[in-house]
């Protein structure tokens, strides 16, 4: 059974279909790529799956459960977490606070505990702090824990964004064009990071328009154009697919 599955997912914006009858399968433990040229409906598809917008038609199933139209925060609760195309952080807060905010679902402290600062509360805080350090170590930001988010570089922004998402303990992580704005070295680190996450048991759906970047880390790739699926398969199959090449390069005139 796929961990995530969409059937006939469709979103119309004033008669135009941004996502058109999309059937998507993501298997547990894989890195699935969702690619397509700009404007092909990738982000809309992600927004539909994660409940940020409501689909016109279609069904989204996660771990066998129908989650169509569920609220984003309820999805996070069952392990479905996303990042955003434009890096989205709590920009005015420190790196530590960003990850602590991200730990909302795993924050065991009670209101009474935080008012009295009981021993139990302090212990829980110490555990949280440890976890924050761990998440930051995974993304390589342990040295920047007291920096304010908006002072970070573009690469560090992305890494922190992933650390915040990790703090919500996702079973499935959906990354929206995470490599945008990164230099090749940062992009490589990011891809290694995504592999590490997969190895730790997180299923990844990677939305990207840069095909070259993800062919070597994805197990399977689905290609969208004008909101519809035009190809699906292993990276090798996709690279050789004529429709995909046409979609990316445009039809040759007169051909």
């Amino acid at each position, binding site marked *: 059974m796929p961990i995530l599955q969409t059937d006939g997912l469709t979103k119309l914006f004033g008669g135009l279909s941004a996502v058109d009858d999309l059937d998507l399968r993501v298997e547990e433990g894989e890195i699935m790529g969702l690619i397509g040229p700009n404007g092909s409906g990738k982000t809309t598809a992600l927004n539909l799956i994660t409940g940020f917008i409501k689909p016109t038609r279609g069904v989204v199933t996660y771990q066998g459960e129908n989650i169509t139209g569920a609220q984003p*925060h309820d999805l996070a609760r069952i392990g479905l977490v996303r990042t*955003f195309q434009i890096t989205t952080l709590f920009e*005015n*807060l420190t790196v530590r606070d960003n990850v602590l905010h991200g730990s*909302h679902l795993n924050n065991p402290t009670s209101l009474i505990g*935080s*008012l009295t600062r009981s021993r139990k509360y302090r212990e829980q805080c110490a555990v949280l702090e440890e976890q924050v350090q761990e998440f930051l170590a995974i993304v390589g930001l342990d040295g920047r824990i007291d920096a304010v988010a908006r002072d970070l570089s573009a690469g560090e922004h992305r890494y922190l964004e992933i650390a915040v998402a990790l703090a919500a303990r996702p079973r499935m992580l959906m990354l929206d064009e995470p490599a945008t704005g990164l230099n090749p070295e940062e992009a490589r680190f990011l891809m290694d990071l995504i592999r590490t996450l997969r190895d730790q048991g997180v299923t990844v759906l990677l939305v990207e328009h840069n095909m070259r970047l993800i062919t070597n880390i994805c197990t399977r790739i689905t290609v969208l154009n004008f909101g519809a699926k035009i190809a699906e398969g292993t990276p090798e199959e996709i690279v050789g697919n004529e429709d995909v090449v046409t979609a990316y390069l445009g039809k040759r005139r007169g051909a």
Partner: protein
Amino acid sequence: MQVRSPLRYWFGVPVLVVALLAPVSLFTNSYNRGLLVLIAIYAVGGLSLDYIMGEMGQFSFGHAAFWGFGAYVSAKLALDLGISPWFGFVAAPVAAGLVGLLIGYIALRRTRGLELAIVTLGFGVLAWTVALRWRPVTGGPSGLRQIPPPSLFGWEIRSEMAYYYFALILLLGVVFILSRMREARFGRAVRSIHENEDLAKSIGVSATKYYVLAFSFACAMVGFSGALYAHHFRFVNPNLLGLQYMFIFLIVVLVGGTGTLWGPVMGSVIFVLVSEWLRALQEYRFLIFGVVLLLVVLFMPSGVYPALQKASGRLRERSDSKGQVFSGGQKHESGGAKGG
């Protein structure tokens, strides 16, 4: 994990000493001690408004209505049912909090920012109309009089000095709770929605739930301040729910500095003292306050307290983002475009 600002304690001790000694040194007659009580009451009101402005990054024009509502609730209980004001100090915030929960639920499901400000204005004015018109219950335009003061072991807290210490303790309690709330799970959730609602949702924070609860909490706090007012001045009238007190709370918050905890306390001190100093000017007073508010918003958007922090040279880098009125949240020119 708590980042302690040494500044808070550095300021705190002498301020506390001044606060404790004020009624026996500087403010010796009962009129002047009454001003001290007013400072404490407005400070609680300002802190509660700042919970909406500073922590939630939102604005409620109905805040004074909850203040007046708290005052009426406690007054009615004491006058009609003969219930002790001590119970009123609990009942008023509970009642205001419950109404805040209801209105927050109606308003915060969909509206934020400007829309929320206007919607709460509508509720506020409706409440004011009811207070003015529902004569059998509210006493109409003249309000309710001869509200009893609270008593302790049969001894009524009538003297300004006693009431001041009483209000001061409660104010410090509110400040304490607010400062601890910031690092609590609840406070973090609220702050995360303020900073970035989409991100907060995506990591599992139910934005509506926490905003409604936070709004209700602020309403409860201001209802409590209203009860303090009712049992001190011992009368209430519909004006308490009106825009004039809204304006006063705004000045208290903005002059002091939003999102700073001690800012509204300082704002309250400044407002009450300056207002007293300008008392001879009668109707010019609010004209002057209008000018002051505009100048503050224009030239000192962070308020007095952060300015003092800066002057003390110990400002941490992280705090300068906090002071700005409505930092984060919706910006005027944000495109917010999401491609795909």
